[in-house]
């Protein structure tokens, strides 16, 4: 296996934005098979937009997104569907379908895309739910679950078709540290045990140190990637003052309230 085979996602000269406004310009990066890759950045700097572009929801202004050897930006029809099956996505709010039970949510892709017999569909979905620690919630409605449980159910739904890549949008946003650490454990467990590649959008420092193999940091004013590397290296060796502040959780001086 040579080096290019090992790259499951390649982002090439990608520019994204809304209308006239360019948020990120000509960015390039690659994600290796089996690694936990985290996209960092200030709120409102296009992290989520970048992820939406990578999963084909947002057309980019220019550039290419290659996933497992297919360009998602130009793919259409069956080819696009084939590429979409390569990954699963967990949205920030979980995005479970409120009118279905948790089990029905998880088994929906199996119902739509496979000819598996009923008992097997149920077994697969139950096994995925057990994996995320929600075996007992199979028959509940999403509204009966807490935020963390909804996110875990969403991860179960994202991985029910055994995709090689999982995209997670802010998996620990709005969760208590214990639940959030639980999701971190789940992520590193899945990465190790199943060799799943993770692309995570986050700004939760603790969780980044716990799970990330490699991070990139996007920035508004630079309109691009300002740092790339292992989180611990960036914390100790970052030259850019902003990156340094981010990894050491220091406030910008302009945010402090001066005593009268």
């Amino acid at each position, binding site marked *: 296996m040579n080096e290019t085979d090992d790259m499951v996602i390649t982002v090439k000269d990608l520019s994204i934005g809304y209308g006239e406004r360019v948020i990120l310009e000509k960015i390039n990066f690659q994600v290796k098979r089996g690694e936990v890759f985290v996209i960092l950045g200030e709120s409102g700097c296009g992290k989520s937009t970048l992820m939406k572009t990578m999963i084909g929801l947002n057309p980019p202004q220019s550039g290419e997104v290659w996933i497992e050897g297919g360009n998602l930006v130009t793919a259409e029809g069956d080819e696009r569907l084939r590429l979409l099956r390569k990954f699963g996505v967990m949205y920030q709010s979980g995005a479970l*379908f*409120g*009118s279905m*039970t948790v*089990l029905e949510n998880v088994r929906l892709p*199996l119902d739509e*895309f*496979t*000819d*598996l*017999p009923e*008992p*097997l*569909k*149920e*077994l*697969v979905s*139950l*096994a*995925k*739910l*057990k*994996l995320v620690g929600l*075996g*007992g919630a*199979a*028959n509940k409605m999403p*509204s009966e679950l807490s935020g963390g449980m909804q996110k875990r159910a969403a991860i179960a739904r994202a*991985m*029910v*078709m*055994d995709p090689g890549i999982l995209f997670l949008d802010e998996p620990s946003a709005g969760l208590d540290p214990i639940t959030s650490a639980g999701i971190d454990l789940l992520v590193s467990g899945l990465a190790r*045990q*199943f060799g799943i590649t993770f692309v995570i959008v986050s700004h939760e420092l603790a969780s980044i140190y716990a799970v990330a193999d490699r991070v990139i940091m996007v920035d508004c004013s630079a309109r691009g990637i300002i740092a790339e590397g292992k989180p611990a290296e960036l914390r100790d060796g970052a030259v850019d003052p902003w990156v340094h502040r981010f990894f050491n959780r220091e406030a910008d001086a302009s945010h402090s309230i001066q005593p009268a």
Partner: protein
Amino acid sequence: MPLTECEAEVKLGPDGLARVVLRGRLSARTVVDCWNYLEQRLRAERVKTLEVDVSGVDFCGGAGFALLRYLNLGKMTPGAKVSVTGLAAGFQRIFEGFTAKDYDTFHPRPQKQSHPLVEEAGSATRRLIGDLRDQVDFLGGVAANLPPALIYPKRMRWPEVRHVFELAGANAVPIVSLVSLLLGFIIAFESAQRLAEFGAQIYVANTITVVMVREMGPLMTAILLAGRSASAFAAEIGTMKVNEELNALETLGLSPIRFLVVPRIVAGVLVAPLLTCYSVLMGVVGGALVMLGLGFSLKLILHQMASSVHLNDVAAGIEKGVVFGVIVSGVGCWRGLQTEQGPSAVGLSTTRAVVTSLLLIIVADACFSTISFFLKS
């Protein structure tokens, strides 16, 4: 049985022994064929001991594990002792991640769903009473919040009133124009046919004016408002409730009734009579156009029209407009506030808002007709 990517083989031995050998890739696609083959071979036999050998499996996905677990649970070979052997170490760990015990614990059991008549009737009554209580609550809230806003105009959110006025009123002008004009056409043509039999076609002008002023103008306007605005109010307030914006208002010390409902009711009360007058005008214009086509002179038509209605007829039409305006905006807001949680809740409130306002409009209209009949006689 040759398979492209997954091979399954069943060997039957003495004493009900069966040996299943699986080879290749067990993915969601290939497992289907294996399943069919195994179902066909194993179901027919009385298997006492089943040995599943998977040492030849080089990939096993979620569906593959499900198949193995299904065999392991003895579902295909009821009563048999089943063993699964030869899984690679990594796969074995995953396989053990979901055990037979897990299946028993988590397997959703079908729930008994029977609702005897008494239970149904009881819960329906409870819902009805709850709905009534809600209505009283809402009316009380409006009664408490509306007068202060009228007495102290500074407390009213006039920009909101103007905004709603524009959305519900000005933006409804095209549809009201079209519907009323065509309504005038229809009434004129229909009555012209009948009245021609008596040589009384000139009275089409009287018919159209009385019908539009007293009945169809207010009613059509109210129906259009219910469809356009009651639904919009319910959807808007309902979405705010789902997004916890109403809770935010409460904790900021702002009553949702004062903040959202009162401006809408005020705008509704102002807009409905105006639209009613406009609708009457358009209806009458429609009728007049038909009469011109029938060969009557404009002067004659106008004279007939003016002589057929009195000021109290016009007042009755406008009164209806006011009442219908209150009904449409009140019901829209009320149903919006009643919205529950979940994605279908807003849709449900919207439907309820339109249905309830149409119902109340017709009931109110019937009351008006009855009262005016007895007042005159």
